[in-house]
């Protein structure tokens, strides 16, 4: 077998069905071997598309995503996507080509030190020097990527390693003597948490991406229903409790609901599950966050505990296992006074928007109704992303796919590719903006090439809306470089690639256009001409406490 064949065999043994990739010089042996492999290759138009697609494939499909790029620029084009997966704890294995081992370090053609470049944004990385080690390395890489707190693992593959002939592979026995994965939480701490819940008058459960990563949604639902715990979520935690669930107060933080922010500020017990107290939640003011509360922090990554806020009950473990153990110790509770207060806030400070004109909030809410509970929503980054977080009724985990920690404009379109390939029978909607879409717009060709019936809802306001909103609010409307004057005709662009294009300019057309898009058998781009003056509200201004929201 060649090194490339050993690699593909090892990937098959890990259950890999497909790879998102882009060929190149040092990968010739691998692409040749791919012709005879069971593994499907999804060709993209730019390596960034491959890594984001693998990322969303992992999120939507609950498995490890794999992407592949060639050495040098191919590898560096993957960097943004690796950082994105690292920040959002997504299990991907990134394969990069590398120049031959004999040329390493000599600044040879298309050489980049990708293991060095990605050191701070990978969970682990390998530079393979001996093709016989490939089975072990692949096995370790998949295990590291998916276990504990998931994350990207990179395997750098020199040309001669892939091209090596008559490789007698060593057995795939992992050598990971120091890698630890946490499972069950400490029984004493769980007992203490159960006691704290019983004693608390105003508890809040703060759910993040860790709930979704560990599949803890059922455990979470049972616990909060039994104990009447109100739930606030992070952006990454959306879907951990279905939209419309009576215990759900919405998203917390910069663009959270007033009720969620007030509740966190006022609570006497904060149970944080799979969150990292990001500054988009705490405003970077860890010491002023939930100051009246006893804080319980449940996380599979011990380094997160105590990183931002002082924790009273640290609980290292898998969210699902910890919540299940906790459930067995709690008594049924009501907390009527607290709920009266919360319902009053919900009544006084609802999320709202104008209904008499074409607003993005209304469009997004309508997409939710028309797409149905089983659809997957992908978003890009910017105002439309926050509106989606606020107004899209996400019913299930892994059905809301967004770039949280890194905030990567351009994530959306390739993410919709990965999500649709992971879940070919589901409707996939992408909500994007005219700024974000143009960062990876070439992937429209990928959609056509692989016959993916993705429905793109483009919120076109002709500006970089989020930056504009900040310039409007905090820089005296001194608008700088946010106008996208030379935008193309997006309908023509869509049609040129082979998508159906629908333009919506009036509120009366929204429902019809979305229904048509949903029922059309191929990919569609629906362009909504919205006002650049629409703001994302409420908003906690940067550096302010979470109770000091504008637009309450």
């Amino acid at each position, binding site marked *: 077998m060649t090194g490339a064949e050993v690699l593909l065999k090892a990937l098959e043994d890990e259950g890999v069905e497909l790879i998102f990739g882009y060929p190149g010089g040092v990968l010739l042996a691998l692409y040749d071997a791919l012709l005879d492999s069971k593994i499907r290759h999804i060709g993209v138009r730019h390596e960034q598309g491959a890594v984001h697609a693998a990322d969303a494939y992992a999120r939507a499909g609950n498995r490890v995503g794999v992407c592949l790029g060639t050495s040098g620029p191919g590898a560096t084009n993957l960097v943004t996507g690796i950082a994105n997966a690292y920040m959002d704890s997504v299990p991907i294995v990134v394969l990069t080509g590398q120049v031959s081992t004999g040329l390493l370090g000599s600044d040879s053609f298309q050489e980049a030190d990708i*293991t060095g470049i990605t*050191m701070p944004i990978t*969970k*682990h990385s390998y*530079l393979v020097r001996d093709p016989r080690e490939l089975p072990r390395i692949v096995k370790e890489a998949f295990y590291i990527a998916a276990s504990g707190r998931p994350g990207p693992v990179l395997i750098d593959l020199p040309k001669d390693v892939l091209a090596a002939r008559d490789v007698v592979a060593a057995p795939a026995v992992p050598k990971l003597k*120091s*890698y630890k994965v946490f499972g069950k939480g400490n029984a004493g701490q769980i007992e203490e948490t159960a006691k704290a819940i019983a004693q608390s008058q105003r508890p809040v459960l703060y759910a993040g991406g860790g709930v979704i990563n560990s599949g803890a949604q059922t455990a979470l639902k049972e616990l909060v229903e039994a104990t009447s715990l109100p739930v606030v979520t992070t952006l990454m935690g959306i879907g951990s409790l279905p939209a419309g669930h009576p215990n759900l107060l919405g998203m917390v933080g910069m663009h959270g609901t007033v009720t969620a922010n007030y509740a966190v500020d006022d609570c006497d017990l904060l149970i944080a599950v799979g969150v990292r107290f990001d500054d988009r939640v705490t405003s970077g003011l860890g010491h002023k966050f939930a100051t009246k509360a006893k804080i319980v922090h449940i996380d599979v990554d011990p380094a997160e505990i*105590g*990183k931002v806020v002082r924790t009273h009950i640290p609980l290292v473990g898998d969210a699902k296992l910890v919540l299940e153990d906790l459930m067995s110790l709690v008594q049924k509770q009501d907390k009527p006074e607290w709920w009266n207060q919360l319902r009053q806030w919900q009544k006084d400070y609802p999320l709202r928007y104008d209904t008499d004109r074409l607003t993005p909030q209304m469009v997004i809410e309508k997409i939710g109704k028309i797409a149905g509970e089983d659809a997957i929503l992908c978003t890009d980054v910017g105002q439309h992303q926050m509106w989606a977080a606020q107004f899209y009724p996400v019913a299930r985990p892994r059905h809301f796919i967004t770039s949280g920690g890194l905030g990567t404009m351009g994530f959306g379109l390739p993410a919709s590719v990965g999500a649709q390939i992971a879940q070919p029978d589901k409707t996939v909607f992408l909500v994007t903006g005219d700024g974000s879409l143009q960062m990876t717009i070439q992937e429209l060709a990928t959609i056509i090439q692989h016959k993916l019936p993705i429905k793109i809802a483009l919120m076109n306001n002709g500006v970089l809306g989020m930056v504009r909103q900040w310039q409007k609010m905090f820089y005296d409307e001194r608008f700088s470089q946010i106008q996208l004057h030379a935008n193309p005709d997006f309908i023509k662009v869509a049609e040129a690639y082979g998508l159906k294009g629908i333009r919506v300019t009036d509120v009366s057309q929204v429902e019809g256009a979305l229904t048509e898009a949903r029922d059309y058998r191929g990919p569609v781009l629906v362009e909504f001409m919205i006002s650049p003056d629409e703001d994302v509200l409420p908003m906690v201004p940067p550096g302010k406490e979470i109770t000091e929201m504008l637009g309450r």
Partner: protein
Amino acid sequence: MKHTLAVLVENRPGVLTHISGLISRRAFNIESIAAGYTEEPDTTRITIVVEADEIELEQVVNQLSKLVDVIKISNLTAGDSIHRELALIKVKASAENRSNVVDIVDIFRAKIVDVNRETMVIELTGEETKIDALCEVLKDYGIIEIVRTGKIALSRGPVPAKEL
């Protein structure tokens, strides 16, 4: 406060970069770092001195522990331990003041490891402060260059760092 950490790692390429990179990225200050082989052939021991308060230190240890190649981290400041550093000092020593330098070397229980007409190289092992003191005294004669290994440390008693 300064803390001395014994970090046992898999002996793989890039592991030292990984550790120093992580510490600097998280904005902790490394005072010194020293690495070498150990009693186990595939393990490297890195002694790191960091300036950090208790909360920062916990973060450093937690973040480092996450690296797949890190086997074990022990805080040697927490228990009773032996701290040593080695320095080589090249100092001016002409015929007329050579005996004075030799006296100083004797007082510090240092060693002379190279002599020529104009200079000497002095070797000293000891705690950081002792080396600082010797350097201070030798300044009067003219120090040409100094090299220091950075601190290494070992706990007292029978228990090795990997079992602390």
